[in-house]
């Protein structure tokens, strides 16, 4: 199962969420963004939901999931496939892209590949949720 700190580290981020000022991610145009409490709550919700979803999106979790539930999840993932596959390739280090390529090349069954890609995409999504809003 993925460990959160390792996942964040893989995309060059730290799990710590600073208070107050939020800025663009490192390497950006460095425009400073200041959010209201309500806006910040929307961003924090992304992190919260990702923290909840990530442990359930691992291959290990998938293999022990009820078939009916897995089928629904796969259907959902397939409906968002383009988005998830694209995000899985976004990791700046190339790790996400390498993982996505490996998954696609070694998993002939598209349903299984979709689920595995979901797990990979979670990593990148988490990076966006934190990195797009906070300076790591």
């Amino acid at each position: 199962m993925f460990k959160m700190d390792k996942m964040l580290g893989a995309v060059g981020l730290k799990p710590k969420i600073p208070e107050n000022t939020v800025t663009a991610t490192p390497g950006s145009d460095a425009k400073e963004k200041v959010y209201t409490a309500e806006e910040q709550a929307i961003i924090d919700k992304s992190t919260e939901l990702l923290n909840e979803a990530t442990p359930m999106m691992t291959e290990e979790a998938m293999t022990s999931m009820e078939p009916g539930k897995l089928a629904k999840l796969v259907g959902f993932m397939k409906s968002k496939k383009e988005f998830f596959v694209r995000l899985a390739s976004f990791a700046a280090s190339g790790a996400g892209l390498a993982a996505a390529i490996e998954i696609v090349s070694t998993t002939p069954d598209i349903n299984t590949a979709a689920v595995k890609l979901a797990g990979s995409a979670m990593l990148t999504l988490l990076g966006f949720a934190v990195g797009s809003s906070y300076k790591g």
Partner: protein
Amino acid sequence: MTQEELIALAEKIKAGTATKEETLTYHKELNKILLEMKALLE
């Protein structure tokens, strides 16, 4: 929002060129997806 629009926003965030409004729109849409996913996993 279409997947293409969402991807475009993600790319702008990744590039560091997204406005505050675009960043918030992305997170709102991401939250919708994650909430839907969460419901499927529960």
